[in-house]
């Protein structure tokens, strides 16, 4: 048999296997939309995968520019995707996220978090010093309405609930905070400079406003307003910035993995923190809408709420909360006395 006839024979034999390919794809369709514990079916998909790989290799050689090859490429890619997918059960994905992924990402972000917190504090101190020394500069950081209100001896937050209901205020605030937080993270794409800009600007504004209201004797009132929600809100600001800085550094110093891969890995790891940040900001927004502007809530309660929420945040992010829960759920060793009592009872 000459070479051409041999290739014809092989091609023909390959085309005769189309029924098997169709069967494999139908099996995949059946399994795709359902959850099954049937190991036989799963094993058959793995067999299909090997069969498709084998036939595709032959098709690439024998039928390089044919629809059969396109079909096999698609079928093989589909089966590959089906066999190599990650965790999709929401409950176990969530458990994995809060117990393992999130604490690991926070630990990895540790150095960035120290640096961004330091930068934020320095920016706040700079804003405070600037406005204290040159009070007119407050015009750069605050709106005319805010300035006018403080100069009248009133915080702009006084009587806020008479203008906007708590629920509306909460949603507006948390939406704004989530967007700022996400922007601080995404701006890391500009080699970290965007993140530093947003972080620095927020620090400067905070310091400047505190210096301004302090000059008018309203600093304790502002601190009382901020304390309930601000502990977590400001921490989340630093966390988002830390995530953005990690993304920025991955672009500046990608290492051996290459810029694209390094960026992608840093973004996916730090992105987990962003999900937690968004959830924490929802809580902070609710506090800011319902508790912070409410004059009937005493300062002591505000401090307790602020510090309590912050401690809860720290224990969730570090994974300590779930470790304590696991310890409590572990069965206690039974004493001999208990055993004897149980038997006699």
């Amino acid at each position, binding site marked *: 048999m000459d070479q051409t006839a041999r290739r014809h024979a092989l091609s023909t034999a*390959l085309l*005769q296997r189309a029924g098997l390919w169709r069967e494999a794809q139908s099996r995949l369709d059946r399994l795709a939309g359902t959850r099954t514990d049937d190991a036989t079916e799963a094993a058959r998909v793995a067999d299909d995968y090997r069969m498709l790989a084998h036939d595709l290799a032959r098709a690439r050689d024998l039928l390089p520019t*044919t629809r059969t090859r396109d079909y096999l*490429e698609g079928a093989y890619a589909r089966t*590959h995707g089906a066999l190599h*997918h990650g965790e999709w059960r929401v409950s176990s994905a969530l458990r994995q*996220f809060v117990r393992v992924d999130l604490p690991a990402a926070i630990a990895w972000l540790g150095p960035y978090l120290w640096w961004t917190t330091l930068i934020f504090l320095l920016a706040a101190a700079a804003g405070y010093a600037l406005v204290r020394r040159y009070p007119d500069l407050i015009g750069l950081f605050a709106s005319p309405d805010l300035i006018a209100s403080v100069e009248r001896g009133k915080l702009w937050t006084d009587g806020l609930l008479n203008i906007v209901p708590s629920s509306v205020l909460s949603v507006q605030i948390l939406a704004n905070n989530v967007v700022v937080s996400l922007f601080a993270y995404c701006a890391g794409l500009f080699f970290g400079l965007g993140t530093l800009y947003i972080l620095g600007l927020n620090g400067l504004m905070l310091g400047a406003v505190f210096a301004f209201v302090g000059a008018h004797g309203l600093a304790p009132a502002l601190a009382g307003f901020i304390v309930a929600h601000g502990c977590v809100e400001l921490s989340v600001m630093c966390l988002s910035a830390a995530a953005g800085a990690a993304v920025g550094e991955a672009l500046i110093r990608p290492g051996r993995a290459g810029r694209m891969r390094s960026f992608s890995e840093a973004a996916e790891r730090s992105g987990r923190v962003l999900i937690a940040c968004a959830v924490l900001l929802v809580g902070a927004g609710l506090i800011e809408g319902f508790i912070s502007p409410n004059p009937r809530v005493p300062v002591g309660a505000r401090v307790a709420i602020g510090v309590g929420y912050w401690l809860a945040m720290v224990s969730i992010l570090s994974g300590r909360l779930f470790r304590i829960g696991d310890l409590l759920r572990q069965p206690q060793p039974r004493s001999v006395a208990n055993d004897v009592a149980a038997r006699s009872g």
Partner: protein
Amino acid sequence: MSEQLSRLVVDSNTGIDVSLPVAGPGVRSYAFIVDWHIRVVLALGWYAAGAAFYNGTLSLSPPPKTDALWFGAIAAPALAIYFLYHPVVELALRGSTPGKRLAGVRVVSRTGAAATVGALLVRNVFRLIDALPAFYGVGLVVSAFSRDSLRCGDMAAGTVLIYQATQELLPLESSRKHPGMLDAQSTELVLELLQRWDTLAPLARAGLARQLLLRHGADAGVVNQAGEQELHSRLERLSTGA
């Protein structure tokens, strides 16, 4: 067809690499426009129905003073539908959306596996940058010039938009028992014509059948005189090598 598409090649443990056809900025835009229309219709629909219910008339105007019920039940959900459509639907449909399905594409990880929950969320967070300054300007430009047509969100999440494999491309399986004169490509053409025979116009299928038969050595006089039935049976004989 496979030669025209750019492909992402991924290693696999069978030793045969997986070749994923990468979707370009055109099909990406098409999917986005479809999804944009869906979310606008859903958000406006919610708003219009809620406003009509709230006002008691067909008026869409909001109340003069901010009202918690209006905001919580009508305005906020409508905004949520518009802004959270992509992350929620992509998570629910595992990397797909109605627009992407219509365009025949889906999101997968760069290993060819289904994208993880985290990757899909990161991909959607970066829409904030891709959407700048307007109409996804950054995303469109970046995907036009990047390798594998990735937008910033895909680069961050390690994902890629690929064409979904369709199952309609496979011709009928050959029943030829013996290798004849036909090469694989011609066998495919003949089988595909036989498969589509009933869906083609009589003139078109007869013309195609004559061309194929003549190319494979049939007598021109006989083929040109043959009716549809005769052409069909000749094609069948050609495909089986009889």
